[in-house]
């Protein structure tokens, strides 16, 4: 039987590989963060975790943190089954998170191994104008093969971003961006127990193609958390009662993303413009992250479970949506499909064709209770009473009686639910057929 995208939707079958990948631990790849040369001082902060991402390493040279970003082509996997040749930094899409401390001096070398000139803009950071990275305005573009030096003195703390500021539409559509976290030199409060960083972006990678289309202006079909789509996103974890911080930057081409956290209420504590005073915060469950902005949310993970965290724009939780398809609601989709395949597929529709290469199901993966009908900007926050290390636990096992299940006859009887009756308050009275207007007819004149 063919495992097509259609089958994923219809029958919910799934290759085992897709399931496993949703459970990878949210840790940075160790190779990306070499030990700082000569730096023995323990950091006064808790390192930020970029799920599915990495943190850029550095070496200390005369008290200056030296970092090296290499812009290059990268074969990037959005989720198992979908790989595209993108542009990234240091072999990653997006680039590794730059992490430093307020007051640090940074020398960031940027080597351009792309076939096009590029620059790096430090989004939200107060840098010397000549290091702002706007090609043509504040610096010449870095030609292919060249290495430019950016010298940054970090006078702020907070969450920022970096991205190409040369031929932005193309280069950001290809993936040239990353997060930039600056921890406070003297924290006003203890660091959170969990500190996650996410970068939101959007892509146009048509099913079956292997390149993002940088000319797309509105119809983005791959919407990512840190360059991944569900079921390729790695869950966040927290012990019950831990304070969780999620830093969310958005460098999507056009879209703002309302990020919804299930099971908790959150507060926005900072933006890329700075901290929000406690008096200026209010509780939310969905935080709109406009493009070109950062929102930092914090909450106490006080409810155990597997909680969805996702963009609330429904088509942003779809993968590689098709367009212009007939609306099959209200028709027998299987019969419809059979009629089409009868004409197109070999053996009068009986034989399978190989599935479209480099395409993933529009929706999700198999979960503990069947198919999870989510894709794109969707991940899971796993809150548990106990965790072993930072590894993601398995599926949440709800205490008995705390999961939606078919209603029993006893329960129905107890509560007086009559399945033959739709409760009256939910049902407005049927409209009476309008009587024909008096004297209705084709009378002309006389009025």
């Amino acid at each position, binding site marked *: 039987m*063919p495992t*097509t*995208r*259609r*089958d994923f*939707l219809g029958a919910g079958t799934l290759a085992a590989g897709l399931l496993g990948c949703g459970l990878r631990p949210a840790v940075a790849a160790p190779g990306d963060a070499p030990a700082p040369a000569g730096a023995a001082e323990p950091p006064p902060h808790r390192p930020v975790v970029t799920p599915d991402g990495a943190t850029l390493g550095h070496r200390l040279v005369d008290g200056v943190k030296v970092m090296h970003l290499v812009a290059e082509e990268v074969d990037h996997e959005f989720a198992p089954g979908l790989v595209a040749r993108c542009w990234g930094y240091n072999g990653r899409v997006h680039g590794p998170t730059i992490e430093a401390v307020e007051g640090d001096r940074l020398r960031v070398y940027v080597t351009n191994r792309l076939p096009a000139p590029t620059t790096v803009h430090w989004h939200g950071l107060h840098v010397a104008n000549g290091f702002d990275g706007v090609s043509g305005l504040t610096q010449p573009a870095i030609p292919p093969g060249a290495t430019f030096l950016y010298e940054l003195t970090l006078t702020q703390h907070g969450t920022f971003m970096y991205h190409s500021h040369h031929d932005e539409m193309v280069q950001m559509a290809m993936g040239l961006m990353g997060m930039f976290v600056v921890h406070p030199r003297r924290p006003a409060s203890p660091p959170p127990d969990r500190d996650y960083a996410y970068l939101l972006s959007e892509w146009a990678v*048509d*099913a*079956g193609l292997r390149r993002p289309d940088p000319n797309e202006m509105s119809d983005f079909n791959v919407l990512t958390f840190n360059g991944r789509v569900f079921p390729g996103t790695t869950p966040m974890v927290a012990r019950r009662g831990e304070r969780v911080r999620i830093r969310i930057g958005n460098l999507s081409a056009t879209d703002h993303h309302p990020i919804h956290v299930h099971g908790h209420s959150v507060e926005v504590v900072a933006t890329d413009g700075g901290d929000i005073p406690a008096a200026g915060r209010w509780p939310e469950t969905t935080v709109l992250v406009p493009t070109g902005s950062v929102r930092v949310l914090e909450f106490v993970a006080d409810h155990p479970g597997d909680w969805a965290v996702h963009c609330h724009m429904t088509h942003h939780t779809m993968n*590689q949506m*098709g367009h*212009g*398809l*007939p*609306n*099959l*609601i*209200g*028709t*027998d989709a299987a019969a*419809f*499909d059979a*009629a*089409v*395949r*009868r*004409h*197109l*597929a070999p053996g009068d529709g009986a034989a399978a*064709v*190989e*599935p*479209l290469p480099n*395409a993933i199901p*529009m929706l999700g993966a198999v979960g503990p209770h069947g198919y999870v009908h989510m894709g794109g900007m969707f991940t899971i926050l796993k809150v548990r009473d106990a965790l072993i290390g930072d590894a993601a636990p398995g599926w949440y096992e709800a205490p008995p009686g705390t999961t939606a299940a078919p209603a029993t006859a006893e329960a129905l009887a107890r509560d007086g639910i009559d399945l033959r009756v739709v409760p009256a308050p939910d049902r407005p009275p049927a409209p009476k057929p309008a009587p024909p207007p008096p004297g209705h007819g084709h009378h002309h004149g006389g009025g």
Partner: protein
Amino acid sequence: MTRRGRTLAVASLAWTLALAGACATPAPSGGELRRRALHDASDRTGVAVAPDAIGAAAADALAAAPLTDANAVRLAVLAHPSVRAALARLGVTRADLVQAGLISNPVFAADAIDFSGRPELEFALAQPFLDLFLRPLRARVASAELAATEAAVARDLVHLAFEVRRALAEVRAADRLTSLRRDALATATSARELVERLHAAGSVSAPERTLVEDAELRARLALLEAEAAAEEARETVAALFGDARPPPGFAVPDGPRDELPALDLGDVEARAWRASLDGREAEALLDAAVHGRTLAGRRAGMRTFELGAVARREPDATFGAGPAVALTVPILDHGQAASARADAVVAVRAAERDALRLRVESTARRLRGRVRATGERAALLRDRHLPLRARFVRETLQRYDAMQVGAFDALAAKREELEAQQAYVATLRTAWLARLDLEELLAGSLVDLAHATPIDDRASPPQEGD
């Protein structure tokens, strides 16, 4: 009769017999001529038919056999009245040849004149002699004319064989087109059913439904057209079998013939002219005209030359007899007009022969071009275009399964594949017809290109907006 009279009569008879015996030129028998014509045609078409098989019984027996090309050609030769007519024309010309070898009969004349009860009687017997001198030339003219008829009859047989093969090719193409259009209708019907379901569910607008419905109707019209063409193509075949008509809707085996067998296209002009039965006919007619010109020269205005005897009994009963001669005195008409006419006929036929050669050679070149062009196009369509369309259908199905294209786009891909197959069948048909035309030409029958296959493919699928 007196003794002298008897002597005269016996002498005359002996003379006549002597003349008759001297002039017996042998003409081929009618059976031999028919055998030769059929044999010549068989050599050229590769289908042998025995002359004595021609007739209803053999045709009926053959009509039950599978309708292969060879059987169909044989059946047409056996049963089509035009074959009987062609063979009968041999009899007409053969009789002309025999006639040319005969000497005119002697003429006997008698008169009796009454002179008041005493009759005068006169008897004369005359033998025309001009024939005797001109007879060999006349036989040569008639012989050449018989050769012309033989060539023409063989040509008609060859032509009939290729008419049959072309008609079968038309049936094959029409059947294939019909089958493709039936598939196209099935696709269009599915699309219409789907759009109706969607419309009933409230998901498709009325004008969208209308267009899909209309597309189905157009597919139906195209099928009806193809079915009518197939029926007509069958009638063309059936009509070639005279009274041995196959039943309606008869099957034509050994289709679908995608591969055109190799055909030597080298030097077709010269080969076509060498093989041309039309050419042989024209040469024979020219020959006849040349002999006719000699004949006219020999005559030189002579109409009559008779020798004979005359006997008379006078009213007083005296009897006398003696020789008689009658001849044209060519002093007023010494045959110059007849000679000029004969000269002109030679010129006409020579020029006609030359014009014919040019036509045969030009037709050979044109048909060679058609065979090459249509063969190349058919091969490209078959080996490249159709696989690409099939690949596109498979790829579209992949994208349909991946929900990147909808049902109607998917069905459109199938429709376009079927249209490509129809275009291929149209080209294949043209290729086969061009090839059969050239084969016919090389078998000796000049194809009239004005009435033959057009070079443009017929039966290409109806296009949007036609």
